[in-house]
Every structure is written in C-alpha cells, then in structure tokens.
C-alpha cells in the first residue's frame, strides 16, 4: 500500500514539473516584454540578462522611466499616429464584434427556429464558406473594395468581417437547444417576431454572444494582412501595421520596440483578465462543432 502511494506521488511530481516548465515557457516572453519596455537597448542585450530594470539607466539626463513609451508613441516623425492607429483598431474591432453578434444571432435564430423552404440549402451554403480561406479571396476582395472606393476608409476595413460563418453556426447550434416553448408563449402573448428576437432570444444567449464578440474582436485586433491591403495612408493604419513599421524603423532600439508592443497589448490584456472565462470558453465552443 505504501509503495503504491509513493509511486503515485512520483508521477504527481513529474506532472507538476512539466506543467511548471510549460508555464515558464509561455509566460517568460511576456514578462520579458514588460520589463524590457523599461530598459534601454544596452541593458536588454546585456549578458547575462538581468530581469530588473536597472536604476542607472533612468537617472541619466536623457532618460526617464517612460522614455521608451514616449518614443513608442512619438515614432520617428513629428506627426505621431500611434493614438490614431490605436483608435482605428478599436473602431474596427468593436464594430465588427457588434455586427457579428447582430447578424450571426439573427441568422442563427432564423436557421434554428423557423421552418421554411431552402433553409437547409442556406445553411449549407453559409457553412461551405468556412472552406474558403480569407487569404485565397483577399485579392478579388481588394478589387471589390477598391472598385467601391473604400480604400483608406473604415468601411473598407470593417465590412468584409461583419459576420463569420462560424458565428452563424455557433448561434444556430446554441439556439437549437433553446426551448421553443418560450418563443411560442411569447407569440401567444402577442409579441412581434422582431420583439421575440430582441427580448427573448438575445437576452437568453448571453454566454455565446459574449464568446462570439470576443472572438471577433480578437481576430480583428490581430488582423494585419487586410489592413496592409486597404489602409495605405498613415492615418488609416491599424495597430499591427504601426508595430510593423515601428520595428522596421527602430530596429536597434529594442526598449522602444517592447514599449510599443506592450502599449498595443494593454487593451487585450484588460479584456482577457476581466473576461477570461469567455476567452477560455471561446476556445472550447469550437469543440461543439463535432456535436
């Protein structure tokens, strides 16, 4: 019996060692980004690396605690676009998450709770678009958007990502399990169909709506390829473009680069640590694809 307990605890120790090793692997680069954003290039590339920003670098005449952050915001020119680009990213990500929630819930509700001719065909058609990767259609999409004179506009950045097939699928799957009795009861009470959608369906789909909104926000926040195509003027660029350009210009100023990366990550960090259960759940909802 004792031997058995001993054996189990060795396995347990091994499990903990591996889990902590993975933890160090995932967290160390993030900690590195944060501490390095307060350091200058000399300290970042010092051998051996010290994890605490050294005081002597801040106290010189031309360096303060926030020098890197000032550089990250000011960039190389007199006309800084950091806040404008941050604002653009927020506008695009927030708008697309709301349109995704609205259109996907509307369509998912229609597909899950109404019987009509062609319903299955519509569902299949929408699902088949999941097989078309954005990367394969970006060139014609670019031609469509430039034909509609939407280059360098918010519309051009936002419209192609207003809803996703995955979002529609997720809403439909969720609403299939929603009891139809509630909807029928509301009908009997004389609520109109849009009223049922707005006052019964949406309030009862909060978890899946939150998850979809966050997924959409994160995808747009991370999007680099499409803005590279349609946002060509400095004022219409998004944050991933700003970081790319900044790191190209400031290749030797590692501290400023990390400060820039850190600043750009703060909105996502806030969102993640306040709504983490929807993020973690958001990954999990993919699994219901297999039913």
């Amino acid at each position, binding site marked *: 019996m004792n031997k058995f307990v001993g054996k189990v605890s060795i396995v347990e120790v091994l499990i903990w060692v591996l889990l902590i090793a993975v*933890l160090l692997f995932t967290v160390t680069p993030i900690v590195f980004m944060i501490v390095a954003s307060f350091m200058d290039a000399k300290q970042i*590339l010092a051998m051996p690396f010290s994890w605490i920003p050294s005081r002597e670098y801040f106290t010189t005449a031309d360096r303060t605690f926030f020098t890197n952050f000032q550089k990250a915001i000011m960039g190389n020119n007199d006309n800084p676009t950091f806040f404008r680009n941050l604002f653009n990213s927020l506008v695009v990500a927030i708008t697309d998450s709301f349109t995704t929630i609205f*259109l996907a819930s509307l*369509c998912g509700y229609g597909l899950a709770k109404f019987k009509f001719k062609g319903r299955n065909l519509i569902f299949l058609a929408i699902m088949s*678009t999941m097989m078309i*990767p954005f990367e394969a*259609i970006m060139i014609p*999409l670019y031609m469509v958007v430039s034909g509609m004179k939407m280059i360098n506009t918010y519309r051009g950045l936002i419209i192609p990502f207003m809803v996703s097939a995955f979002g529609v699928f997720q809403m439909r799957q969720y609403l299939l399990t929603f009891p139809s009795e509630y909807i029928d009861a509301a009908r009997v009470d004389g609520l109109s169909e849009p009223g049922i959608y707005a006052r019964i369906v949406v309030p009862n789909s909060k978890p899946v709506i939150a998850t979809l909104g966050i997924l959409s926000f994160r995808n747009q926040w991370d999007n680099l390829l499409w803005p590279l195509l349609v946002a060509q003027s400095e004022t219409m660029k998004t944050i991933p473009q700003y970081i790319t350009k900044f790191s190209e210009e400031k290749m030797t100023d*590692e501290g400023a680069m990390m400060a820039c*990366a850190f600043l750009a990550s703060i909105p996502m960090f806030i969102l993640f640590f306040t709504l983490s259960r929807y993020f973690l759940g958001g990954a999990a909802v993919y699994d219901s694809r297999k039913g």
Partner: protein
Amino acid sequence: MAKKGYSIERKQAKWGLVFTIPCLIFFAVFSFYPIINALFTSLTNRRAISRTSDFVGFENYVYIFTKDNGGFPLSNSIRATLIFTVGTFIPMIIASLIIATFLMQLRKDKYRGFFQLMYYTPAVLSSVVAASIWMIMFDPRGLVNQLSNFVMRTSGVDYNWLVDSTMLQISTMMIYFWKYIGYFVILFITGLASIPNTIYEAATVDGSSRWHTFWKITLPLLKPTTAMVSIMAMLQCLKTFSTQYMLYQGGSSRFPIDVITMNIYFTGIRNGRLGRASAMSIVLFLIMLLFTYIQLRLTRSSEDVEY
C-alpha cells in the same frame, strides 16, 4: 383551423427568410463572388496599375509553376508553407495533448484554471507583438542564445536564429508554437472533459494502470477531438502570414520563410500582378481543400466513437 395553421406556416417562412437573408447576401458578396472572381482573374493578365484585363488561359498557372517570379518562385513558397505547417502543427498537437492530459490529472480545479489562464495568455497577444518579442530574444546577444549556451554547455555561440535559413524557419515555428499552444491545450481539455468519469472508474476497478488507461481508453475516445483539432491547427498553419511578414520587415531574408500568403501579398499588392496572385490564391485554396480531405479520410474510421 387548417387555414390558420397554413397562415402560421407562411408567416414562419417569411420571418425565417427575413432573419437569414442579410447573412446570405453578405456571404454571396464577400465569399462566393470573390472566390469565383479569383478563379476568373487567375485566367487574365490583370494588373493593378493599367487595369487591363485580357483572357490569357492558363498562362498564369504555367508562369507561377515554371518561372522564378523575380527570385521568389511559388515552388519555394509551397515548400516553405509545407515545412512550416508540418513542423508546427505536429509538435503542437502532440504537446498540447500531453499537457492537457497532465492538466486533467490535477486534483484541484483551481490549479487547472490557473495553468489554463497562463498557457492561454500568449494567444491574446497579436501575432506582430509575439513576433517582435521573439525577434529581440533571438538577437545574437539575446535571451535565447544565452539559454541555448547554458543548456548546450557552450559559451558565446550565436545560433543565428534570424539569419541562418534553417534556423529562421525553426524560429517562425517556435513563435507560432508559443502563441497557440495554450489555445490547443484548451481544445483538448474540452475533449477530455467530455469523456465520462465512469469509464475511468471502471478501468481503475479493473486494475488498469494510468499508462495503460491513457493508451487504451483516453486516446481512442479522444480521436474525434484530435481529428478536429488537427484539421484546425493545420488549416491555421497553412494560412500563416503575420509572423513571417514581421520577421521579414525586421530584416530577415524573405526566401526561406516566403510562405504562400506572403508571396500572394508581394506578387499581387506590391508588384501589382493581380492575375498571377489570383492564380496563387487558387493554388492555396486547392492545397487547403486537399489537406482537409486527406485528414478527414485518415480520421474517418474513428468518427463513430460513442461513449
């Protein structure tokens, strides 16, 4: 009564269409039309500047498969994409399966939740942020070299993470692996959590060891999840762009990491060769379809697992 039922059905059908048509129009304009358009454009010599568009048959396909496209042939891009995909998604699936299995062994949900949160954190950073962090850590004097020298018991060796063409490819794989490992761990945890506890209890009663249980019970029952997760991981790797683009902008050479999406971007947008870029897009689309088909065939036999 019958008449009323009929009108309710009519009303239902009307509202069903009203709710679904907006999305259908959206997908028609922004998915179906572009893919058909890509197919059509790939058969023309369309360029961004002149806006001429003459039908040239399969000339673009012949060109991208036989010419070197200004030093960046499509064959190299297919090689780069396939190496990246295989080198990233296979280690990622194996590692995330092992980590998820280990996490499930933890007795307290609190610890498991903490680990999940910490593993997932890199996934919320944008790809360009992830790449820029690692670019600095891969510096000749940076952290990764310091650690490698410590582990390999060498001193002052530069492993050329961002310079040597093989190392550069490994670096992109590492960045991607780091960013997405937590995400795939969570997918596997969801799969593992859906296996009923009673099965494990029965196995324990029968005297099955943990190792035996994992190979004979967990793994077979997890096959549907594994199939789904690996298709997702694979498709995601085939579409990679930001990591490679960021490293290229940071000064690394383009050739070793010139994945298909990057070649489409440079050919179509930077060089304005829309016809050729469309042909490459169609090739990418076909590669993704083919890979999905192969994966589905390989895993089909396991689809009918029931608990």
